[in-house]
């Protein structure tokens, strides 16, 4: 028992205690406590400092709208800054620290800012810090940045895990107060699949703080009975600790479940938080109403609290917010709180009522001061009194806590997230959700019904209507009987006149009434301007308490209705959600799926260093003993392929099987070069354009039978090309009879390249693979010795005599092993992407380094391939546009350094010799470059203005980024075997 813990009452478990720490001080609480209730019980009211003026701040609410009580929980990499103490469930070992103060919460240097407050009025930084100009970067900005933010994050690797789930239901009920419970029961009994989600760790909503009896028993017992019945219904899922944070298109709701945020050491096999995407046929918002704070002088002093929160602390947590409490109210709710506090034997110092002739009954012996206004509060780090003004007379009343009750705001946040604007209700003096159609229905206090009986009825009725809508029949159950209650009425009070101290609107961001006045004066009167200019409503609580008062004040100052001011835009998230929860398991190595080639194991055995290429891992090179860099290995592999033979995994290239009587016609329209007459048993290089005439993708396509082709695509565009084909077949030419299927994963495909490739291959293949029997660009199904069927293609990227052999994926590794074994005598080596790249640059073959999405076939030297005969193919028509055929376009050329020990790097630009570097003088760029072990110096492919006319000329290869430039000679882009003699042996 502590000074502020009441002797009895509440739904906490007094039989056990939980030890926790705040700012290093050991404290005790009970299961069922929030951190805030436990702090209050331990007389720790002061919990933080405000953003701008570092004013001492205490706990204000008992829920998610808390602006002040933000603490840092946890240690090291598991640190959670800006955690609301009012919703943090207490656990043994919890370690919380206050924020935005130095050196300590009690003594904070930053509080000096308060003295400067006249200079720090709304929008001050837009007017200042400009003189002298140079000071901004060096002096002012660092100062402002130092003051930024509240909590401190560590940005370390999060030790905890998260996951995501989908859920489906007929009815999602958000909020498990009286409204939500009745709705869930009604729908659940009717047989609907119901999800009942509530952000609290204990369900019951306001019933947990309610003293009225329902069905002749305490409200809490009623809530428990409802929950017990719900648990027994087979189609009902109850989700505590689950905040519904967003309402998205098609009635999909985002929710986050705090699975293990209330334990010291989370179990590894469970996530700490879980993201739910709830697909709901219907949803019912039973999120209740939020009590409205009052704007009066000194209203931010620790000890000033929402009256309803005091009630909750007393009734639900058995905690007194103070020993002597004054209530400042503009309606009957304040009286309800007063009598609940009195019932707990907490002294009620006075009820200050802004109304002229209140009819509400105060607890016995409590003084009521009507027509009054609180104009200031006393005390430093906790209130010790307040100053009341009535009819021009001031009086100081001693108290150690002030409860403020300014009326009610339905919690309609979710309902307004999809563009519909809240509607002002003059009767209720508040904003209500607009009509949203059938998907989302608002009920109970969230719909402006404040009486308990009304809420129970509303929940039941609306759920019954939804059930009927969805074709379920509901039995009529009698509504629970509710004891005597008053429907709270109030008279809106936006500002308590006569303030003698700053009257705050937004506590966390330190926005006070004068800031709003200034904004208005300077032309920022539109509610969105005022928000941005003063930052009201932009703090971590998103204006849950403040926004309505800001609207009311702006209306009042202009003499217009709040309806004309409106609200600012409601946006997800209802309360802030951790990145981790929204990312789920997609993080680190798991951030994207991995694709592995069937030859991955083979490559690994042969010492491959892998590199990612899209989702795939591909061998970059195969280091051998003694090789120090990738270049050593690559050079060896290149030479080996040119002199002997090499084996390279090309399984990742996209493979698309194309079937149908119109397959040839289809390909003919798809590629810019002709395909109609490709004979069976032949492969052909094909080039696909985009419709705008730019090269898209290339690869070989082979005809295996009259109605069956197999196309290869580049690895990078395999998916894109497949979609492109499907689009063309389904949408562009639906009349063509053609079907596709990807077989990329079915085949392990190996390039066997080099002068000795035939020797190696013939040893394994039954069929004759000689040049006569299987000439360049042949494609056929062959049989491996032992009877295995395989596909063989005679194509070459390296420029050497080469084959590509495809075998069923599962056998890939075994076949590759066999080839290596057979090839050992011929000096075979495995070669990787790096060597492949060198080999193709030496041959002037293009990849996506050249086809970068801006290059035409002609730019890359394929001009003659583009069929002039065909009437139509994708890209034909727009490829003749002026800009795509202009004479000064950049054309692909080869480059070799004039001094052969000089280097060329891809990405360098080209300049005429002697020309000054400038955008205007820019002649082109290097697309690919490498060291050619075959030639003994660097070579490059480049795009150069009118390049093909300039062979023999010199250019400066300008690489300012590396600080160097090189003079190179422009040459034909095929460096090795331009006559293709090695290919066709």
């Amino acid at each position, binding site marked *: 028992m502590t000074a502020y813990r009441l002797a009895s009452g509440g739904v906490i478990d007094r039989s056990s205690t939980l030890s926790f720490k705040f700012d290093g001080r050991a404290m005790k609480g009970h299961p069922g406590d929030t951190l805030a209730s436990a702090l209050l019980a331990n007389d720790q009211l002061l919990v933080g400092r405000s953003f701008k003026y570092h004013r001492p701040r205490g706990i204000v609410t008992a829920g998610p709208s808390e602006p002040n009580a933000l603490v840092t929980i946890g240690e090291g990499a598991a640190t959670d800054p800006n955690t609301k103490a009012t919703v943090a469930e207490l656990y043994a070992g919890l370690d919380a620290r206050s924020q935005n103060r130095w050196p300590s919460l009690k003594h904070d240097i930053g509080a000096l800012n308060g003295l400067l407050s006249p200079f720090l009025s709304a929008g001050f930084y837009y007017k200042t810090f400009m003189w002298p100009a140079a000071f901004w970067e060096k002096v002012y900005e660092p100062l402002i940045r130092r003051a930024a933010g509240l909590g401190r994050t560590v940005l370390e690797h999060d030790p905890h895990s998260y996951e995501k789930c989908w859920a489906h239901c007929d009815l999602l009920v958000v909020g498990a107060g009286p409204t939500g419970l009745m709705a869930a029961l009604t729908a659940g009994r009717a047989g609907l699949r119901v999800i009942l989600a509530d952000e609290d760790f204990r369900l019951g909503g306001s019933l947990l703080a309610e003293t009225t009896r329902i069905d002749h028993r305490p409200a809490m017992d009623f809530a428990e009975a409802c929950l017990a019945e719900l648990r027994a219904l087979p189609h009902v899922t109850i989700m505590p600790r689950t905040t519904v944070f967003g309402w998205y*298109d*098609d009635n999909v709701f985002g929710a986050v479940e705090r699975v293990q945020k209330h334990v010291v050491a989370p179990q590894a096999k469970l996530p700490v938080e879980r993201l739910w995407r709830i*697909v709901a046929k219907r949803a019912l918002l039973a999120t209740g109403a939020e009590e409205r704070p009052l704007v009066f002088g000194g209203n931010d002093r620790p000890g000033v609290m929402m009256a309803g929160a005091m009630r909750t602390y007393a009734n639900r947590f058995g905690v007194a917010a103070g020993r002597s409490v004054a209530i400042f109210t503009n309606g009957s709710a304040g009286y309800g709180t007063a009598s609940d506090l009195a019932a707990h034997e907490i002294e009620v110092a006075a009820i200050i009522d802004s109304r002229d002739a209140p009819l509400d009954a105060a607890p016995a012996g409590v003084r009521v001061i009507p027509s009054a206004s609180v104009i200031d509060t006393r005390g430093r780090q906790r209130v010790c009194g307040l100053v009341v003004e009535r009819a021009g007379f001031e009086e100081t009343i001693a108290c150690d806590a002030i409860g403020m009750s300014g009326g009610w705001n339905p919690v309609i946040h979710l309902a307004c997230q999809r563009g519909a604007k809240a509607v002002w209700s003059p009767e209720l003096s508040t904003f209500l959700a607009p009509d949203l159609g059938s998907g989302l229905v608002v009920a109970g206090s969230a719909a402006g019904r404040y009486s308990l009986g009304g809420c129970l009825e509303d929940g039941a009725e609306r759920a019954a209507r939804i059930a009927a809508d969805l074709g379920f029949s509901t039995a009529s159950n009698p509504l629970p009987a509710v004891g005597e209650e008053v429907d709270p009425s109030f008279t809106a009070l936006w500002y308590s006149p006569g303030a003698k101290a700053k009257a705050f609107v937004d506590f966390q961001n330190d926005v006070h009434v004068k800031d709003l006045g200034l904004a208005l004066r300077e032309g920022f009167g539109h509610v969105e301007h005022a928000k941005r200019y003063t930052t009201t409503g932009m703090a971590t609580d998103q204006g849950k308490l403040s926004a309505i008062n800001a609207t009311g004040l702006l209306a009042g100052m202009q003499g217009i209705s709040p309806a004309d001011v409106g609200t600012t835009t409601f946006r997800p998230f209802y309360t802030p959600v951790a990145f981790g929860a929204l990312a789920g398991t997609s993080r680190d190595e798991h951030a994207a799926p991995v694709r592995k080639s069937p030859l991955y194991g083979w490559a690994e055995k042969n010492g491959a260093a892998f590199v990612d290429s899209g989702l795939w891992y591909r061998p970059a090179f195969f280091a051998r003993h003694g090789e120090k860099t990738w270049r050593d290995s690559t050079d060896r592999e290149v030479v080996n392929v040119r002199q002997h033979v090499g084996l390279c995994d090309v399984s990742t290239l996209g493979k698309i099987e194309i079937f149908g009587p119109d397959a040839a016609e289809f390909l003919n329209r798809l590629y810019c070069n002709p395909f109609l007459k490709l004979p069976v048993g032949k492969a052909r290089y094909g080039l696909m354009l985009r419709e705008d005439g730019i090269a898209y993708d290339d690869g070989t396509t082979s005809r295996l039978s009259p109605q069956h082709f197999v196309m290869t695509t580049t690895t990078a565009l395999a998916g894109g090309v497949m979609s492109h084909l*499907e*689009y063309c077949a*389904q*949408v562009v030419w639906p009349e063509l009879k053609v079907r596709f299927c990807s077989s990329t994963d079915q085949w392990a495909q190996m390039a066997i390249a080099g002068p000795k490739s035939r020797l190696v291959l013939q040893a394994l293949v039954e069929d004759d693979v000689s040049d006569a029997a299987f000439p360049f660009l042949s494609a056929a199904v062959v049989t491996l010795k032992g009877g295995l069927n395989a596909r063989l293609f005679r194509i070459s990227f390296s420029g050497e005599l080469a084959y590509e052999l495809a075998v069923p994926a599962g056998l890939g590794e075994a076949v590759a092993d066999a080839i290596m074994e057979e090839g050992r005598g011929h000096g075979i080596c495995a070669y990787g992407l790096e060597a492949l790249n060198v080999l193709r640059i030496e041959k002037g073959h293009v990849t996506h380094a050249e086809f970068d999405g801006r290059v035409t076939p002609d730019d890359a030297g394929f001009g003659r391939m583009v069929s002039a005969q065909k009437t*139509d193919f994708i890209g034909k028509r727009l490829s003749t546009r002026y800009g795509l055929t202009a004479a000064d376009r950049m054309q692909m050329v080869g480059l070799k350094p004039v001094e052969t020990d000089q280097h060329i790097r891809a990405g360098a630009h080209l300049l005429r010799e002697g020309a000054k570097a400038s955008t205007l003088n820019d002649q082109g760029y290097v697309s690919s470059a490498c060291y050619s072990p075959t030639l003994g110096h660097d070579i490059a492919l480049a795009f150069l203005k009118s390049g093909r006319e300039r062979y023999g000329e010199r250019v400066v290869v300008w690489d300012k980024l590396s600080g160097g430039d090189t003079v190179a000679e422009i040459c034909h882009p095929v460096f090795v075997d331009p006559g293709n003699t090695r290919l066709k042996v």
Partner: protein
Amino acid sequence: MASLIHCPHCGVRPSQEFSIRGDASVVRPAPEASDEAWHEYVHIRSNPHGRHREHWQHVAGCRRGLVVERDTFTHDVFSVTDGAAVAREGGR
């Protein structure tokens, strides 16, 4: 739309399963059509505020191209039809 799409072949699916291919009201011109017509086909978009027809492909499902008719402001979907069927009817 945008959260879920009702594929006529596969049922209700999350938007992650689809990729969008743009305006379905443009029709590929005949090869001999004017330069203007070709330019408009490739580049010009009516970009309406309100009802709009778009091609979506159910890439992670049936892989069919679909024509989704929807409102670009409310995101309400009016219809989802198989793209080839629409194209064959000439309504493409």
